[in-house]
């Protein structure tokens, strides 16, 4: 993305009165993964564009899949006086719980989880999560409607966390719409194994699937197969339409700005943590983005809108196993 590059750590910033709000984020994968980490990076860029570079600065450490390196980064950013340090990975929690108490004047955020450690007497940690099962459900509904064979393939990394929520939601959406449909799930055991994701997609197609979805950065491999074989694709975390403009139907897009805006306001108001946030369909942190290159029949679109409405007003509750 042609995003403005993040500001390097200022070495000698002239201390002009309205001090910029400074955020640091530590992320497990790359900022251009078309998935989890990119969704956070894009949100920070969007906020910076909105607030202006003089009012909002951010720094990032990506590719921090090694947890103790991430811990060092979190501690270091806190030491450097960032207003908010985001630990964008559920595996960073145990590090955060040790670091946060040492920096009572710094706010931390941990995602994706609901645990703010208040039970441990810590009150400067926010928690945030994505209710990805919600968008998953909606995409499942659309998929069930569009699939002709009634066989739908799902490709996931390991059956945990965000990926599990999404897959469970998706499956529930399919089955609620077409109880006879068959949802085949394939876990690859890795977030990054593009080749295996691609093979998983082939397997689904050979098993009769005409509609696919999947989560984690490895799915670019699966999308390639979907494109070649002309089967439909549903994405999540980021907008993946650019990869296969003809067959991507819709994507659930994460927009963390909703959550980040709220956190920033709270911090400016003196609250440093203790609150858990979620991006949901209701707060527009999760949106279903249709691919303009693919025409979804109007009846399906309206069913999807009804489903979204139902989830927002609570008449549909998405259950995960």
């Amino acid at each position, binding site marked *: 993305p042609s995003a403005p590059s993040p500001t390097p750590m200022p070495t000698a910033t002239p201390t002009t009165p309205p001090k910029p709000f400074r955020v640091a984020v530590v992320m497990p994968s790359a900022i251009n993964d078309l998935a989890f980490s990119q969704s956070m990076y894009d949100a920070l860029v969007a906020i910076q564009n909105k607030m202006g570079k003089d009012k909002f600065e951010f720094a990032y450490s990506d590719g921090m899949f090694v947890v103790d390196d991430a811990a060092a980064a979190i501690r270091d950013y806190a030491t450097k006086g960032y207003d908010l340090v985001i630990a964008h990975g559920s595996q960073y929690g145990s590090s955060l719980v040790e670091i946060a108490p040492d920096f009572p004047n710094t706010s931390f955020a941990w995602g994706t989880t609901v645990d703010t450690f208040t039970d441990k007497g810590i009150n400067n940690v926010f928690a945030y999560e994505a209710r990805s099962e919600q968008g998953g459900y909606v995409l499942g509904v659309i998929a069930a409607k569009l699939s002709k064979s009634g066989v739908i393939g799902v490709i996931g990394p390991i059956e945990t966390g965000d990926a599990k929520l999404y897959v469970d939601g998706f499956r529930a959406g399919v089955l609620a719409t077409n109880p006879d449909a068959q949802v085949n799930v*394939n876990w690859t*055991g890795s977030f990054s194994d593009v080749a295996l994701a691609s*093979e998983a997609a*082939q*397997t689904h197609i050979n*098993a009769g699937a005409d509609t696919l979805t999947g989560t984690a*950065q*490895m799915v670019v491999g699966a*999308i390639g197969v979907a494109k070649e074989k002309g089967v439909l694709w549903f994405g999540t975390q980021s907008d993946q339409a650019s990869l296969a403009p003809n067959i991507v139907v819709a994507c659930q897009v994460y927009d963390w700005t909703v959550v980040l805006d709220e956190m920033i306001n709270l911090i400016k108001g003196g609250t440093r943590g203790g609150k858990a946030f979620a991006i949901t369909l209701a707060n527009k942190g999760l949106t279903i983005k249709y691919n303009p290159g693919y025409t979804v029949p109007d009846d399906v679109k309206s069913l999807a809108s009804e489903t979204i409405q139902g989830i927002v007003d609570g008449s549909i509750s998405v259950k995960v196993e």
Partner: protein
Amino acid sequence: MIAQLFSLTTLIGVLTAGIRLATPYLYATIGETLGQRSGLVNLGVDGIMLMGAYAAFFVTFKTGNLVLGLLVATMVGGLLGLVMAFFSVTLRAEQGITGIGVYLFGLGMSNLLFRKTLGTVETVSGFPPIHIPFLSDIPVLGPIFFSHNILVYGAFALVPVSWFLLNKTTLGLKIRAVGDNPKAADSLGVSVAGVRYFTEIVGGMLEGIAGASLSIALLNVFQENLTSGMGFIAVALVYFGGWRSVGALAGAILFSMVNALQLWLQVIGIRIPPDFAIMMPYVLTIVVLAFTAQRVRAPAALSKPFERGEG
């Protein structure tokens, strides 16, 4: 459910996928086998594959020319092979560490370049499947064996070619001699360094092609750590194959087929935890080797730097 496992669809699916998945392993394993036969261990295969994958993708993306992309990947692989050879042969550095260094360099550099030159995940249209008149249309066998792209066939053709090189040519004789007793080869005027440079550069080229086979033939994308450790499996398969091309073929096929099979097991809905399904290719590779391993000896000079006049 079990019946589905033994259906024709599954069989065709597993075999086709096995052949397809085996492609990058074959290139990389045979490349590494060449080097090891001459006494060089290269643990940097994965890094070289990544650089090859990136180079092929970038060139193809910018020019639309697949052959050029493949060529550049080959050259980049050869160049890294040259670097490996310079450190292992000329500087006589510990090969295991050099390889890990090359791996880290390739892993980091391919991603850095990816980020600076492409920025985000893009796609290309890679080598298309070749439709062979008549053959491709045979039921069952057609889809299994004759529905692939040129690089897949290239990988399988490499098996007899490399076997021929090693066993039927004067150069192959030199390679085998240098790997087993460099002193003896040296005493007959064979250039130990020359032979090792050759195998390492050609090996690097093949590893570059292995990467390209991912990024412009099988997956048609590039992403950070695209290989996710395939290069290390390729190294393991050299040992599985007992330093022979045919063994490499057996290993690559076995590993890939079982991998394809475990995906099928999951899709069919056999009730085992996915983690255990995913383990299958790794476990089976060991088990099969345990039951079939003969007394194949590694090249005696493997990983030992050669220096004339040392006691």
